[in-house]
């Protein structure tokens, strides 16, 4: 995989429950160790506490390390209607993506404020990533976003739910899938085989330094797919997704 540009769709920094704080220096160290040139970064405060504070911290850290990190925002639809305003601010401030964490934050995907927020993100042409960790959530999300056009990244899907994810990916080309938890043997190959243009719909995300970067990266490196497909998964697709 020589001369491939590695671009990670999710690096985290900030406090994390029951874990030592995730330091920005740890993010950068893990990137260097795994030859990852750029990452979309996110402050965990936005997930666990308050998205306004989290987004501000993300912007600040990414400005300080702009050669390596680009900002991702979080929004919480429970903060309706303010979250609509924050979505507009995020687009103006140059956030590359907005992430949603329904499971972690405890709100349902079938949720009127979320639907409106997704519509807003679509109008703003900003890609979104939505955590879909349980069976049925990706299907529910697909039904909820039938009206949107912007790319949508399914996050947190694991190999046990890959059949559902493949069905959703086949339903519309706007859907993309994070590779983080797709660590069963043959999982990436299944997506490239059963989804039209499948290799261009997979996005590498490490969730480093909370998770071991090399674990998920090795799965892409070791997959039985072409080097061109691997290059797309670990960087090219994300560049395209966020319009760079």
């Amino acid at each position: 995989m020589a001369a491939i540009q590695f671009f990670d769709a999710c690096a985290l920094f900030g406090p994390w429950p029951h874990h030592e704080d995730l330091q920005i220096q740890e993010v950068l160290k893990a990137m260097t160790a795994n030859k990852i040139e750029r990452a979309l970064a996110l402050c965990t405060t936005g997930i666990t506490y308050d998205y306004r504070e989290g987004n501000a911290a993300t912007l600040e850290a990414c400005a300080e390390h702009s050669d390596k990190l680009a900002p991702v925002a979080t929004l919480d639809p429970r903060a309706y209607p303010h979250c609509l305003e924050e979505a507009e601010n995020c687009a103006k401030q140059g956030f590359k993506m907005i992430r949603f964490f329904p499971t972690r934050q405890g709100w349902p995907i079938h949720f009127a404020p979320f639907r409106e927020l997704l519509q807003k993100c679509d109008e703003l042409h900003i890609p979104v990533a939505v955590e879909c960790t349980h069976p049925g959530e990706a299907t529910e999300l697909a039904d909820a976003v039938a009206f949107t056009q912007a790319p949508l990244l399914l996050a947190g899907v694991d190999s046990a739910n890959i059949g559902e994810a493949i069905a959703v990916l086949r339903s519309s080309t706007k859907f993309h899938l994070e590779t983080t938890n797709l660590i069963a043997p043959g999982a990436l190959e299944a997506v490239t085989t059963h989804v039209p243009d499948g290799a261009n719909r997979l996005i590498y995300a490490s969730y480093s330094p909370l998770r071991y970067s090399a674990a998920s990266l090795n799965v892409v490196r070791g997959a039985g797919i072409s080097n061109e497909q691997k290059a797309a998964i670990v960087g090219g697709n994300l560049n395209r997704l966020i319009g760079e």
Partner: protein
Amino acid sequence: MARIDLHCYLGTTPDTRALSAPDVAAAKAYAEQGQFEALCFSAPLASFDLVGGNSYLAEHTRGDKRFRAWMTASIHRPDLSGELARLYLVKPRFCGALIEQKTDADLITSQGGRDVLNALRRYSRPVFLTATTPANLEAAVAAAREFSTLKFAIAPQTVELTRMAAVAIKEVVNTIFVPVVSYTERDVIASAMQTLGERRVAWSSGWGRFSPVAALGMARDSAITAAQQERFSFKNASELLVEG
């Protein structure tokens, strides 16, 4: 580096339901990829069919001297588990017994669990215990304390339990901790080595459920010394399997 893979799967698992079931040919191909002294398989079929699953495992681990087998026992079928132990745990190929605690109805400290552990005492083989809830992790610790002549390998099956396992088992010296890549945050391995000492943490890939390169990446990304890597990847498992 020589390795022992302390837990792999032969047959369909929840993570590979939509993918190809890992079979013997694939297991042999995996075994050729590294310097494996032993690969210890369990059969997911045995979770539902004790007789059929253990028989399948006995048949399919034959013929490769590196292949070892975990005989699945069930706290709900103590008599049958005892019979199967008499049949299989006298064979050198069977390295020990695997007992799954999938819910709090499967506590190893239940009467059925105690009966199974009593039956296993005569074979001097280790017991591989899974834990999926705080209550059954606690049960695993209590059982190991009560059955102090047996050795226990404890493999938590959630991120939260993996995070707390080393502290939970610290005082019970006949236990070793086996982190599962899918549930392991960084840097649980280094932290567990600090808590438990370098002799009580062992590597498994979960091959069959997970691509082994993920677990190799996890080991590589851990902040442990070369000597500790050797302990983690080989020596600790070797001592567990030899000493029982």
